[in-house]
Structure formats: structure tokens, C-alpha cells
């Protein structure tokens, strides 16, 4: 246990910060610790949490993906056309939306690996392309998303069961203990547990860490470097699509919002760093970034319950981010060869 904390100091710090912020927030909130507040918070956090997971994978191998927000927006616009009709049609729509983002991520990977471009500039360009496609799809905000699905996936487990009339409309004894849990949280945990955690335990996943930690050593150890880079960007595309899918469900529309896409991309980097993932690569993980994203969102929630000038929000967010990041910089003091600081 001690070792686990020592080896994941950044993550442990982020968890602590999150717990403190979360508890204080609910204590201060007039309706703190209630299911309604919980659902609202979860709804507003899930998209950024997915985008933060997306950003984490390239960052782990010392790259940045500047297209994650744009791919989310593109996926949301696709979703605004496809998430309607019969159950079968909707299922197909969900798969198609996820496939869109995943394919876009794979394209990023192909450009980086075989086009030999720097990830940051390649994804800056492809991000603009994604926004362009989104604008073609949705020149004006609009679309038609199945109302039942939107309602069921953005509320509590009880609402979900009630909407679809399963488990006696949410009254069955075995669903009671979970009735108040927000569905978006379950989706987030589900994707993390079913996609990220298993992926981390593959040779490809491990190679992503190895590339960020010491690419030369990864090469001489015979690790599949190209495959890992492709996988990293593909996975980033998939998580971005999850975010887009959720956004469409939550807002019932598709909106090619350029400003929002950019903000999500930048916030995803902030969330990754807050979660304790090193921008230099090799250390961290997607779960940590989810915590980072939740911290980021929690800070903004405070403005609603405290009497703070909303104009101060960016300033305070910036200060918190700066403080959190400084805590991780102490390591540089132990460097004995100053030249190593520049490598």
C-alpha cells in the first residue's frame, strides 16, 4: 500500500484534493449529498472526463492530441442525426458515432506514424478538419435525439429503469441499492473499466508507457512502437467519441461549436496534468485524468454556491492549476546534472 502511494504520488495527491473539494462542496451546498445535486454534477462532468481520458493516452507517450475536442464535437454532430428511430436504429447509431471518432483517431495515428509528423501539429490540422466536417453536418445547431434515451442516460438508475420499465420500473429489491446512482457515472466507470483497464494490461498498452519513459530502451527491448502509437491515437479518438455521444444525449442536439471544442481540448490537458500524468510521458493514466477532470469541474461548481464574482472564475481556476502543478515539480530539485533539466 505504501509503495502504491509512493509510486503514484501525483494520482494520490489528486484523489486527496478531489475528496477534500467534493466533501466541502457538498457540506456547503444547501442540498448537499442529494441525488439531484449528484446527477447534475455528473452530467456536467462526464464529457470533459471522457475527453481527459482521450488526451491521456497520447500524453503518456509524450505527445499531445489537439483534436480531442474537435473529434468530440464531430461525433456529437453525427449523433444528432443517428440517435433516433427504432431500438435497432439507435443501436446502429451509437456504434456509428463511436466508429466515427475511432476512425478519426486512427487517421491521426497513421499521420503521426507514417507521415512522421509531430503529434501536436498533425492533430492541430486534423482537429480543424474535424470541426470543418462538423460544420458541414450542422451549420446550425439542431438534430433529433431520442428523448427517452437522453432522459434515461442522464439521470439516476431509477429513472433509467422507470423509463424502460425494467426491474419493475426501478422498484425491484435488487436495484434499490443502486437507484440513486447517476447513469452517466456508471457509463464513465464502465468505459474506463472495460476499455482502459484491460488495455493497460496489454503489451501495446505497456509500450505506450515505455515510449514515454524511454523510447530508445523500448526499441531495443523489441516493443511494438508503431502499433502502440497507432493504438494511442485510435483510443483517443474512441474516448472523444464517447464524450461526443454523451454530449449529444445530454443536449439532444448537435452543435458544431468551435469555441467549445477548443475549450474542451485545453481543459483536457489541464485535467491530465491535474490528475498527475506527466507531460513528459511514462507516468499516469486515464483514471487519474478522470479525477483531474472532476477536480476542474468541481472548482467551477463552487462559483454557484459561494458568493464569488463569476468573472473571477478563470483566474481562480488558473491559480489552482498552477498550485497543483507546482506540487509535482519538486523532483527537479534533486537533479544533480543541470544539463539533464534540458533534456
Amino acid at each position: 500500500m505504501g509503495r502504491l502511494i509512493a509510486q503514484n504520488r501525483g494520482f494520490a495527491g489528486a484523489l486527496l484534493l478531489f475528496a477534500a473539494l467534493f466533501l466541502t462542496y457538498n457540506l456547503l451546498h444547501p442540498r448537499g449529498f442529494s441525488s439531484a445535486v449528484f446527477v447534475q454534477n455528473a452530467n456536467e462532468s462526464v464529457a470533459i472526463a471522457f475527453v481527459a481520458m482521450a488526451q491521456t493516452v497520447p500524453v503518456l507517450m509524450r505527445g499531445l492530441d489537439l483534436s480531442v475536442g474537435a473529434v468530440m464535437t464531430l461525433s456529437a454532430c453525427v449523433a444528432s442525426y443517428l440517435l433516433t428511430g427504432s431500438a435497432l436504429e439507435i443501436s446502429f447509431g451509437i456504434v456509428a458515432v463511436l466508429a466515427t471518432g475511432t476512425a478519426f483517431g486512427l487517421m491521426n495515428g497513421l499521420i503521426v506514424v507514417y507521415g512522421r509528423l509531430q503529434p501536436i501539429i498533425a492533430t492541430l490540422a486534423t482537429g480543424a478538419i474535424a470541426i470543418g466536417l462538423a460544420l458541414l453536418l450542422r451549420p446550425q445547431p439542431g438534430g433529433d435525439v431520442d428523448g427517452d434515451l437522453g432522459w434515461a442516460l442522464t439521470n439516476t438508475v431509477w429513472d433509467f429503469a422507470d423509463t424502460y420499465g425494467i426491474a419493475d420500473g426501478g422498484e425491484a429489491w435488487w436495484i434499490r441499492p443502486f437507484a440513486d446512482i447517476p447513469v452517466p457515472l456508471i457509463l464513465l466507470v464502465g468505459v474506463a473499466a472495460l476499455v482502459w483497464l484491460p488495455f493497460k494490461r496489454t503489451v501495446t498498452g505497456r509500450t505506450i508507457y515505455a515510449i514515454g519513459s524511454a523510447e530508445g530502451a523500448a526499441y531495443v527491448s523489441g516493443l511494438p512502437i508503431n502499433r502502440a502509437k497507432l493504438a494511442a491515437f485510435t483510443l483517443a479518438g474512441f474516448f472523444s467519441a464517447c464524450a461526443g455521444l454523451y454530449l449529444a444525449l445530454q443536449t439532444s442536439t448537435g452543435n458544431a461549436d468551435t469555441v467549445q471544442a477548443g475549450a474542451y481540448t485545453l481543459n483536457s490537458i489541464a485535467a491530465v496534468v491535474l490528475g498527475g500524468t506527466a507531460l513528459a510521458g511514462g507516468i499516469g493514466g486515464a483514471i487519474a485524468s478522470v479525477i483531474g477532470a472532476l477536480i476542474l469541474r468541481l472548482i467551477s461548481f463552487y462559483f454557484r454556491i459561494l458568493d464569488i464574482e463569476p468573472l473571477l472564475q478563470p483566474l481562480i481556476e488558473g491559480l489552482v492549476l498552477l498550485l497543483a502543478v507546482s506540487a509535482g515539480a519538486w523532483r527537479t530539485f534533486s537533479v544533480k546534472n543541470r544539463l539533464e533539466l534540458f533534456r
Partner: protein
Amino acid sequence: MTTPIIDLRGISKSYAGIRALEGVDFAAQRGSVHAILGENGAGKSTLIKIISGVVQPDAGEMRLKGQPVRFSTPSAATAQGVVCMFQELSLIPDLSVADNISIAAPPRRFGLIDRKAQLSRAAELLARVRCEDVDPRTLVRDLSLSRRQMVEIAKALGRGPQVLILDEATSALTAQDVQTVYDLLGKLTGEGVTTLFISHRMHEVEALCDRLSVFRNGRHIETFAKGERTDAEIVRLMIGRDVTAKYPPKPAPVVRPPVLKAEGLEWESALKGVSLSLGKGEILGVGGLDGQGQKELLLALFGVLKGVRGKVELGGRGLPSSPVDAKTGQPRVALIPEDRKTEGLMLPMSIADNLVTAAFDRITRSGVINPARLDAAVQDGIARLQIKVGSVTDAVRTLSGGNQQKVVIAKWLMTEPDIILMNDPTRGIDVGTKQEIFRMMRDLADGGKSILFYSSDYAELIGCADRVIVLYDGRVVRELEGSTITEEAIVGASLNIGTAA
């Protein structure tokens, strides 16, 4: 004679026009421990990189157990049982010991890495190298260098080698670990594993190997069984090269007042008590095999390293606290760095900008660059070293290696240094430019500057230096002066064997 397990025929390899290996025939037998010896740059590293698939030969053929093979990647070599333990460690610092040991082919369950099996496999392999004290769950970055090297050996073992290549595998090990490696190699040899052993520690070669091959200037000189040659003969085989450069005549030895005195310099594990004294107008050569602390010594004297212990007298002050302090204090110190591409130059910037980067105080007036002074300084620098440039606004990247190095030197001469630390300044440049640099060094020394000159090429030390100190394992093991500076003496001291001077 049985079919050799490894058989190279006519292997050649060049890097950017510089020949690293030429027409090498080399064979190793099954179950033998085969030493590969040679000076810096003799081609040892290239040879093992080719055998282990890190680089591909330009020409020639490799056979494994009689079958022609071509390894395009290290994993291809590993798959055929050729496993290399690299000098620059191949461990991933941010992953655990267990992860590293099974890095490319971990045990799996349902397609996913089986961490439990991985842990027990790591524990088992660590036990084989008697490192039970290393917890497989520790991150590699938290291990000491000697433990990392043992983990590296365990990792190599885990790949089921038929040919095991150990490149300076024992350089950071404790005496007890070395004994463990000896025992292990003995056992592996009994099982028919072939070991290629690259080491500069002659006593290890003596104790372990049954055959020795000497390389020189990219060629395979001779292979013989242990005991067929004396140490002195081996040293002579390693030298024996053509003279490639002419050196300016050295002045008669005189007593020189010291400008720099260091006593017992210690830093991390690289410097273990280096003492030296550099006189005014003297060129003091620093010799030894690569990685014996020479680079760290120069970096320490230039104020780059933190936590250096020991006594330094440098004018009225001690060790410079930073490069800024080094170049502005009295006496002024300059460092011609090891890697001109990363530490010496800003490659995309212009020649003019590069020339003045260390001496902005000469060309500015109240903090603003004065164009007339800038121009004068740049022209001065170019003339001083006769740098061949088209236009000074060209990117420095467009110059040849030799001219790039001249820009680095000119840049530092512009600070009017009293002491110049040179870290292998002639690496990868042509003979003509080398001669110009040697000429310039002597002129500077005659003009009262002092030069501390590290070169990986012993001939340069013999040709240029008034005195030579040879470093071995972070200590000065020999000091040579005047006619005692011979290749035999330097090579002998570099290997830390008592060849008569």
C-alpha cells in the same frame, strides 16, 4: 571444427560516411565465452549492434548455426535466441522490475498480462542472479545503477538466450555481483550458451573468457585462445594504427604556475576523487576509455553539476557555481561541449547568431545589440578560425561538421577565456580541420591560455598534450609527461593493467 553458432562474413557498416566496420569476418563457437577487445571507436559497439539487430550492415552476411539470417529489429534477433544486454540500459525507468523483465513477451491470461505470473517469473529470474533483495514491484527508476544492471541481466536471461551479448555488463557492479555473473556465465556455458563479452577490464576477460578477438579501426585484427598472448601483446594489437594527423611541435617543458588546482573531486558515482593541476599555457590531456568520468570532470569544472565535493583553486575562487559564473568570473572558463548539435549550437539559427551567443556583453550597449559591434565580432570570429561560410546569415546547420565545430570554438574564444575545457573536440570531423584545431590549440597555449583536453583518440593526446592524466573508474590512475606519453602507456593505464611505460 563444428559449425560456429555466429558467423559473420565481410560485414561493413558506415555512419554518415564514416566507416565503423570494414570487411569483418568473425565467428564464435557454441558454449564459448568470447571477449571482444578494442579501443574507443574500434567498432566493437557497431559489431554487437549488427549481431543483435539494432543496426543493419551495409554489406556482408551473417549466419546463425550455419543458416543465413538478417535481423531487421532487435526483436527479430531475440526471437532467434540472440540476446544483447546493452551498455546504455534498455530498461524502462517508469515501469516496475517485473514489467521490465517480461517487457516484450509477458505471461498472459485471456490475452491480458498476467501480473501474478509476471511477478513470480521475475522473482525466479532475480533469484538466478541472486538479487532476492530486489522487490519485483519496485520501479526501475528507484533502483541503484548496480541493481539495474543486475535486473538487465535477469531480463536477458529470461529471453532464453543461445547467444548472450554482454556489453560492459559489469561496469557498475559490486564485487559480489561480479562473482555472481561469473558463476552464472559458467553455468550457461555448461548449457551450451555462447557469450560475447565486451569489457575493458582485462582481469575480467582473463577470468571469464576462453577466446579473445581484437578489433581496431573497424577491422577484425586477430582472434586467439586465452593465454596465447601476453597483456603487452594485446595492447600492441589494439594500437598499431596509421598516423592520421600531423601535430604542431610541443614546446620544451617548463615550470608553469598553476591556474587551476583540483583535489579529490567527487560527484555521484562518476567522480571518485580526481586531483589535477593545470598550468598557465599548458595543454593537459585527459585520457582513458569512454565513461570513466572525463565528461563529468569537465562539466563539474564548468559549474554544470550540483553537489560536487572536493577542493578547487581557480584564481581566487573555488568551483564555478554555474556556466554563467564560469564564463564571467576570473579566470574565465569556457567549455567546448561533447555534442555540438545539442550543447554547442542552435542548429536552425544563423552562423552569426551562434557565434555571439556566449559573448553578448561584447556586442551590446545598455542591453541592446549594436549592429556594428555584432558585425565586427562575427567577422573577427570567422577570421580567427578561418571558418568557410557562404553567408553569416545561413543556418549553422548548413555547414560541414568541421566548420560547425569551428563555430563552437570561435563562439567560446569570443569570451576571451583563460581556461578552455575541451570535450572530445575532434569527434566526427575531417583530418584537415583536426590539424587546424590542433594548431589553434597550441597557439592559444603559447598565448598563455590553459587547455584541459579530453580526447577519446589517444593519438591526439600524444600529439598535442604537454601532460596527460588517465582516468579509470572516476580516478586519475596515471600521469604522463614528455616522452613517457606513449600509446602503450595510455592504453595500459586505460585498462588499468601494469604495462611498463
